[in-house]
């Protein structure tokens, strides 16, 4: 054995150092036909299976390779923001949350994918196309930065056995907005008489966490006639008396239902999954919640719940406004995005073009049990969505794709994304619900904050 000398140690260190560097270029020199894709994990496993199948089919159909990362919903959001901040980005990612498209388009962080969307433009719903656009504050133009993949609206989910236990039938539920929700107060009163201490009429998410409370408030705002709060030109209309009246009515109804004891007290602290869990535990009669996750999560485990006990009110069933007119559904569209700095934009675009072929996209949402809606109206006519044996799908797709729909307001003005994330509407609901504030006062406070937020995005 040779002596250990200074030179030999240094030489050895150099060799080791060089060896550790060697694999790096191999990673950096990944095949030019590889693209990395990030996607949010599904609520049910079938969603991930559907995604993996679409990816595998693409790999088979092309010579390209997709490095797919399926990441839980909340961590994916953090990962996306970290990636965009650091500049080390994947080639494709999904809009998690949806408004991330508009937030980072403002900063010119996405590749224009107008050519990708163009390949199937005639197939998409108008709402899906509108939702794929965003204002770029660097180029001072609006462009298509998202590729519509799937969508969701906010239907009502009801437990039939609880309604019947209170002495009512599902058919007794009124059709107009206030009467519809008031019905569940009567159901709760009936259940109390039956000795149910802890079952509540409505699962309103009167909380300042997650995306649910915003969706809930917007559904009520639109139903009360406040649809014009932000118009297509991006302008805010808080001075419109109809908008103000609608906001006051929404805060009054949602906060009032909580204050009067028709919503579980813990709802004030709920996160996105908590209302699903409480509903599954039969702790409330009805829930207003986005997607069909509530139902599909139980399809395999409790088929009798899915096919018999759970009722989904899309269309028909979803209430009209108080004058009997249909209420447009506000649609959130998940988009495929290509960040600027992506290493392989060509493959990324090719993959997305493949993915949005009507057959592929239909299969993707159908294999995912229909938790998400398709974004192409023709897909809604498939035997899957029109299956007469399925109690949920037909009404859901009618509500979110074939009936009157609207894109979410952050599509028209990015400021509305911050209104959502800062939970401005939640605070108005909670002010009424918990602190006993007058709805007018709570809404004035919310409007002041909304104006401050909009002032930051003047260029839009």
């Amino acid at each position, binding site marked *: 054995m040779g002596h250990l000398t*200074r030179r030999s*140690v*240094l030489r050895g*260190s150099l060799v080791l150092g060089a060896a550790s560097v060697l694999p790096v270029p191999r990673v950096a020199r990944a095949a030019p036909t590889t693209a990395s894709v990030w996607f949010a994990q599904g609520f049910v496993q079938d969603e991930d299976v559907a995604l993996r199948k679409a990816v595998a089919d693409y790999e088979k159909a092309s010579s390209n390779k997709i490095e797919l990362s399926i990441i839980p919903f909340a961590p994916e*959001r*953090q990962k996306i*923001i*970290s990636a965009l*901040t650091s500049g080390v980005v994947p080639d494709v990612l999904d809009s998690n949350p949806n408004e*991330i498209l508009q*937030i*980072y388009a403002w900063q010119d962080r996405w590749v224009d994918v107008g050519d990708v969307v163009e390949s199937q433009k005639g197939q998409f719903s108008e709402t899906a196309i509108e939702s794929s656009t965003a204002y770029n504050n660097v180029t001072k133009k609006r462009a298509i930065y998202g590729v519509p993949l799937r969508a969701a609206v906010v239907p009502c989910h009801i437990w039939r056995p609880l309604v019947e236990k209170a002495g009512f039938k599902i058919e007794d539920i009124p059709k107009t907005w206030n009467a519809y929700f008031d019905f569940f107060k009567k159901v709760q009163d009936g259940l109390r008489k039956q000795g149910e201490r*802890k079952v509540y009429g409505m699962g309103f998410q009167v*909380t*300042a*966490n997650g995306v649910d409370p915003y969706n809930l408030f917007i559904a009520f705002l639109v139903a009360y006639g406040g649809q014009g709060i932000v118009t297509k030109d991006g302008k805010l209309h808080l001075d419109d008396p109809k908008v103000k009246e609608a906001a006051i009515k929404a805060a009054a109804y949602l906060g009032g239902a909580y204050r009067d004891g028709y919503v*579980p*007290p*813990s709802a*004030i*602290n709920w*996160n996105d999954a908590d209302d699903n869990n409480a509903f599954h*535990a039969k*702790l409330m009669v009805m829930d207003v919640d986005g997607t069909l996750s509530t139902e599909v999560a139980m399809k395999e485990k409790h088929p009798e719940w899915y096919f018999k006990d759970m009722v989904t009110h899309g269309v028909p069933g979803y209430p009209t406004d108080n004058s009997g007119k249909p209420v447009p559904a506000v649609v959130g569209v998940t988009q495929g995005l290509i960040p600027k700095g992506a290493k392989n934009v060509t493959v990324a675009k090719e993959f997305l073009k493949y993915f949005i072929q009507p057959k592929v996209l239909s299969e993707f949402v159908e294999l995912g049990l229909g938790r998400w809606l398709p974004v192409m109206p023709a897909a809604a006519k498939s035997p899957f969505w029109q299956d007469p044996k399925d109690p949920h799908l037909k009404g859901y797709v009618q509500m979110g794709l074939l009936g009157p729909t609207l894109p979410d307001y952050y599509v028209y003005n990015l400021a509305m*994304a*911050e209104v959502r*994330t*800062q*939970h401005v509407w*939640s*605070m108005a609901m*909670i002010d009424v619900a*918990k602190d006993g504030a007058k709805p007018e006062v709570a809404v004035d406070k919310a409007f002041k*904050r909304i104006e*401050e937020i909009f002032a930051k995005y003047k260029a839009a």
Partner: protein
Amino acid sequence: MNSVSAVDVSRPALHRRTLSRSLRGSLKGGEYTWALAFVVPYLVVFVTFVAYPVVYGLWMGSDASLYRELFADPIYQSTVVNTILYLALGVNVKMFLALLLSGFFMRPGRWMKALLLIFVLPWAVPQISTFISIHWMLNGEWGFLNNVLYKFFHIEGPSWLNDRWMALGAVIVSHIWKWTPFWTLILLAGRMAIPLEIRDTARVDGATGLKGFVHITFPLLANLYLICTLLSTIFLLGDFNAVNFVSGGGPANSTHVLATLGIRDAFEIAHPRLGVAAVMSALPLVIPLVIVLMRKLRTTEVQL
């Protein structure tokens, strides 16, 4: 005149030689190369994992407009109040309890060792799952605590997490419950390091019980206690888990602390620089703490 003198020409070379000599110090020949070989890896690690993140963080939070935006946030003020309360109560109650308990665990006996083992369990179990359990236990409608109250006493318990002060109290109590065992062990080790002769001599002089604690034990532990308190304050300032998983920052964003507000701004509002600014706004408190801590650690006297 633009002429360059010989002195001027030789100046850079002279400067280089002086610099090289000052770097080498008393090291000669190969010793200098050895020193470099050992120092360079450390420097690389330090620059990559310490200096760069700190400088990057400072850079991210360096824009004054971020602080204007932060102060305009309606929940920022209540967040600062929460942070102060969380630190003041969380650290001091916990450290005081740890001080008392460390005395209790000094008692002899095998059963005391067994009790100590049970006592450290809250610290040993993973914190996220325990905080989530506490969150569910405190649920007003179907939580364990209210169910017990109803079943055994027919009392309808309150919605523990629906009120700002009760929710913040729950966070503080959870933190104290989780971390008291750790600091108790540290102070117990400190107590055990006090030489037996000192304690025996004091006992002979009549310094037993409270007198012994006030005149002997505490003065000898004071430095350790202060260092532990400072360290715990710095740790707690960056603590995210207790608030996030026990109260979730609710109700209505009323129990956020700076760490959770920073995460919310960075990832929910999708404004990472604002998130960094939220955390950086604690610097006026952190810097004096670190300075005092460093001074205490530099103490050369023999102190426990």
